[in-house]
């Protein structure tokens, strides 16, 4: 269905409202896929850019949230096939062992070490579990909200979250992470 292209006014306000409400959700799903915050931000921006272009072309989108989440997921999947991924720079976790010239407080170092261990474990987990954990802990979403985004029921969210957390706790304990700063 063709609609009027967006102009400065109500359509732009609608777009800004959509961005405010859903940009973090698109980011969260892209982040869960690749565990790369900058890449996830690029994917979220690209998804919204495509929405804007659809509107400019006069296309009507019935459910912008679902559309954005689907485009975000597809973009994240496409990234696996892109030349940049094959030939691009090293992911940030490869820089974990490189020491900064700045002297860092011990607290920050311990925290970074815990995060690096946690990242390693998260990377080995299924993407579905990472989706749940990212939405739960980055966005503070409850089971109902997560269920809406992922298209599953809230009971399944509870169950899968609980299992994922248990697996994480076991792995972290095995690696000697016991105090969290």
């Amino acid at each position, binding site marked *: 269905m063709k609609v009027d292209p967006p102009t400065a006014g109500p359509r732009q306000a609608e777009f*800004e409202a959509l961005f405010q409400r859903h*940009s973090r959700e698109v*980011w969260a799903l892209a982040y869960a896929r690749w565990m790369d915050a900058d890449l996830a931000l690029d994917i979220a*921006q690209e998804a919204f850019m495509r929405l804007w272009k659809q509107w400019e072309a006069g296309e009507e989108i019935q459910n912008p949230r679902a559309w954005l989440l689907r485009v975000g997921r597809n973009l994240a999947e496409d990234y696996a096939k892109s030349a940049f991924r094959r030939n691009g720079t090293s992911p940030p976790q490869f820089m974990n062992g490189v020491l900064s010239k700045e002297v860092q407080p011990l607290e920050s170092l311990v925290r970074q070490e815990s*995060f690096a261990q946690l*990242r390693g474990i998260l990377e080995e987990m299924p993407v579905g579990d990472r989706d749940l954990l990212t939405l739960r*802990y*980055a966005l503070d979403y409850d089971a109902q909200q997560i269920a809406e985004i992922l298209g599953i029921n809230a009971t399944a969210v509870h169950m899968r979250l609980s299992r994922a957390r248990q697996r994480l706790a076991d792995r972290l*304990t095995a690696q000697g*992470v016991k105090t969290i700063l």
Partner: protein
Amino acid sequence: MSAEISKITEDNLDQLLSGFFKAALPTPFPPARCLVLRDEMPMPLSAITTPNRRALSRSRLSLAASVALLLGGCWYISNQIGTQVDRPTVGKGEGSAKVPKAILNAHDAAKKMTP
């Protein structure tokens, strides 16, 4: 598992996960890039990011015209060369060459002188 390693608590895990994911989440979340671009550039975003349809058809037309011109040129030149080959060439056939008058006169003079 070593005995000195204590089991991680639920609260600790929540704290760790929350800290980890919130550290990754850009804060504040940057504004929509397309709106920033739109404010900076007066033309529609699609005009910047996707080629104009009219410009695309114009470039296709000029490409077709150049190819046609090239083929036509080749055809014309090959025809020209063909006709040049068919035409009798000057000086190749027997007796077709023009002998300069001075030589002819000298030749005639020499004939007269001989008995």
